[in-house]
């Protein structure tokens, strides 16, 4: 549904998703182009979310705005509200981060003078000031950790936040006690710095998720927004997909995707079911035929009576399967949590042993023993550990994003790094999933025939015409001059061609009469007819990508819903083994079998029928051209035509995990050095602050090496 909010001045606000915007030039074009539409008073682009908010008079319709953007060269869609942006993960962290930063800096300023030798009344004053700044700041910024730790403890579990919270609360309490009793050392600076570093790690992790999600959402929200519905009195009205109800008649033009399941009441066409079933051959339908949401109408206009819409469609069946399939994923425990399971008990045992040791053996007294035990807690607080995972993952995801691979969250990289088996869907993943003209025939076309066919095809929205325009334009061919262009749906386009000498020739681009393959026929009066065959092609660079996968020790095979003949052809061309005619359930079971045999499976797929398999696999990747279900279920989405995204992302994920392990080693190594000092009672707040910053900086520097991870 479109978001339309009434404004006090009688104006409305509409938010459109424009995935094609990516630079300042695009922003200026979109904002100025929309402002020039009559009735529009303002347009403001949000580039991060790839959206534009338009304020306009009540009379301006959403399709008019979409058309205006289309004329500027930016395909746009009204925003679907049920897929509205999930609450940003990073925003709630910014305010605590700001407060912790402010407090840490000011308290550090005061601490430096204490370390430099300020004594007596000055030290006491500075301690009181530190407490006045530090305690509210710790209470505010620390909530992030306290809440999460409490949540874990309530359920009898523990996580990284439990040792952090215990350390922070004990250190704050001790510092307050020292301040009140006029003691020599307070730990407000170290505690605040710890919070600052940890919050920075969290904020980075969240920012990465937000950024990837914004990119995926921009793609997601442009899916099947609605249909033209024919009313009783014959007028046609555009209705959004969620408002479609059974019984409505929707008119589906050639080149449009169906928004609901239904039955054909008039018209004849062929449908591309590849997103729904993986079947690559177009299926002819006539009056009385059953059609499904998500299929693409190829040839002629159809009138379809809606039999099921929204939750009632075939999609709902697949969605149910997907819900039941995400177990491998929910069972996965992130590496940071696994580390803290070992780390937290170790740290707490050490601190308790230190306290007991000083009390019983060292006879240091309650206060002294407590101070030393808390110093151990602070020095071991996982400051560098908190940064070890997110910084490495943020840097790697940034590198992958520059290569057109969007990673939805950090745990996807962790799971991807373990993969040793990949299953690839055929239609749309191994192949491009759209009909492309035979390049050999295009090479053989006379130059003027090429120009004429480009001009003819550019007048049609038919998928074959669009593919022809794209292929010819890529060859640098310019369109010929035509007059009297006429498109007959289901038949083709005819026109009169005026060549350079001014001679007029009737020309046509039409559906061939008796061709068995998908093709278009080009007629130029006085010349023999050209037949341009179309077929789905393998993605460029498939061979190298598969070789690279083999080099990584990842075994690949095809898992397709298409018929055995079509799959066999691709299997021979790629040299892969294949399983054909697999329905969504069979695909999911194939993955479960491999997982049962101890393999870690990566699923690469695009269709609705791949949804359950994408959700069930240990990690999954989908092309940007995939169905919205595919993009939603996949962990990674790659843009562009090449399949090299698969080996590239696996390689990057493995390098990332190698760096994460190094980071853990560095952080633990620092503890091995620092903990004996702390247990011996030799650590002062100055040493703690220096050690904490140094270990964090080393971990960050090590992670930055991943900038080139996606090469």
């Amino acid at each position, binding site marked *: 549904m479109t978001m339309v909010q009434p404004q006090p001045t009688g104006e409305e606000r509409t938010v459109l998703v424009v995935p094609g915007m990516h*630079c*300042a*030039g695009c*922003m*200026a074009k979109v904002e*100025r182009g929309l402002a020039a539409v009559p009735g529009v008073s303002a347009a403001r*682009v*949000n*580039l*991060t*979310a790839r959206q534009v908010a338009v304020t306009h008079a009540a009379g301006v319709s959403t399709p008019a705005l979409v058309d205006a953007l289309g004329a500027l060269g930016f395909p746009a869609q009204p925003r679907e509200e049920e897929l509205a942006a999930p609450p940003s993960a990073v*925003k709630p962290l*910014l*305010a605590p981060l*700001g*407060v912790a930063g*402010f407090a840490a*800096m*000011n308290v550090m*300023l005061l601490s430096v003078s204490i370390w430099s030798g300020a004594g007596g*009344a*000055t030290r006491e*004053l500075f301690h009181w*000031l530190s407490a006045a*700044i530090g305690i509210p700041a710790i209470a505010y910024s620390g909530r992030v950790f306290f809440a999460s730790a409490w949540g874990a403890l309530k359920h009898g579990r523990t996580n990284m936040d439990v040792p952090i919270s215990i350390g922070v609360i004990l250190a704050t309490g001790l510092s307050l006690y020292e301040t009140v009793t006029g003691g020599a050392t307070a730990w407000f600076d170290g505690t605040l710095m710890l919070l600052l570093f940890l919050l920075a790690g969290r904020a980075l992790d969240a920012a990465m998720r937000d950024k990837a999600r914004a990119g995926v959402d921009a793609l997601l929200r442009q899916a099947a927004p609605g249909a033209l519905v024919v009313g009783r009195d014959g007028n046609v009205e555009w209705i959004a997909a969620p408002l479609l109800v059974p019984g409505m008649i929707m008119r589906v033009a050639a080149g449009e995707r169906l928004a609901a399941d239904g039955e054909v009441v008039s018209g004849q066409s062929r449908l591309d079911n590849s997103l729904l079933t993986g079947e690559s051959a177009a299926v002819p339908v006539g009056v009385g035929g059953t059609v499904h949401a998500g299929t693409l109408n190829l040839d002629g206009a159809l009138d379809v009576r809606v039999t099921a819409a929204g939750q009632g469609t075939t999609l709902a069946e697949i969605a149910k399967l997907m819900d039941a399939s995400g177990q491998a994923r929910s069972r996965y425990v992130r590496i940071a949590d696994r580390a803290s399971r070992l780390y937290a008990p170790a740290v707490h045992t050490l601190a308790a042993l230190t306290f007991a040791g000083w009390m019983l053996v060292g006879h240091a007294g309650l206060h002294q023993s407590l101070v030393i035990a808390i110093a151990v807690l602070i020095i071991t607080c996982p400051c560098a550990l908190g940064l070890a995972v997110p910084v490495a993952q943020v840097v790697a995801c940034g590198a992958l994003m520059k290569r057109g691979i969007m990673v939805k969250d950090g745990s996807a990289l962790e799971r991807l790094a373990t993969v040793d088996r990949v299953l690839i869907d055929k239609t749309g993943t191994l192949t491009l999933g759209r009909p492309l003209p035979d390049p050999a025939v295009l090479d053989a076309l006379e130059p003027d025939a090429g120009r004429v066919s480009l001009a003819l095809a550019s007048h049609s929205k038919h998928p074959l015409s669009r593919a022809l325009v794209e292929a010819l334009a890529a060859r640098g061919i310019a369109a010929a001059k035509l007059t009297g262009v006429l498109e007959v749906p289901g038949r083709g386009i005819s026109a009169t061609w005026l060549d350079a000498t001014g001679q007029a020739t009737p020309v046509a681009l039409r559906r061939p009469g008796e061709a068995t393959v998908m093709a278009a026929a080009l007629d130029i009066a006085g010349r023999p007819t050209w037949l341009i065959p179309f077929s789905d092609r393998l993605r460029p660079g498939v061979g190298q990508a598969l070789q690279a996968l083999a080099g990584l020790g990842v075994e690949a095979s095809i898992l397709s819903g298409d018929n055995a003949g079509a799959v066999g052809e691709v299997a021979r061309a790629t040299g892969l083994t294949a399983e054909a005619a697999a329905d969504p359930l069979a695909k999911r079971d194939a993955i479960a079998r491999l997982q049962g045999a101890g393999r870690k499976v990566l699923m690469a797929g695009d269709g609705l029928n791949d949804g359950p398999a994408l959700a069930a696999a240990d990690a999954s990747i989908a092309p940007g051209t995939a169905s919205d279900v595919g993009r939603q279920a996949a962990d990674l989405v790659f843009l562009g035509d090449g399949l090299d995204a698969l080996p590239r992302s696996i390689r990057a994920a493995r390098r990332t995990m190698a760096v994460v392990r190094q980071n853990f080693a560095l952080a633990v190594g620092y503890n091995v050095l620092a903990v004996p000092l702390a247990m011996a009672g030799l650590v002062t707040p100055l040493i703690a602050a220096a050690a904490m910053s140094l270990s964090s900086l080393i971990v960050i520097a090590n992670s930055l090496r991943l900038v080139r991870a996606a090469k």
Partner: protein
Amino acid sequence: MTGLALLIPIALGMGLFGLAAFFWALRSGQFDDMDGAAARILIDEEGDDLP
């Protein structure tokens, strides 16, 4: 000590001012579109008659 009595409130005041400015920026939506803000500065002003 008189120096401190003057300088510390000044230092804290400036820090608090910065924190308040950050909160204001956060509330007024300046962190909503980081990419757009970076690109917006490159948009030329309207009007081709400018030299």
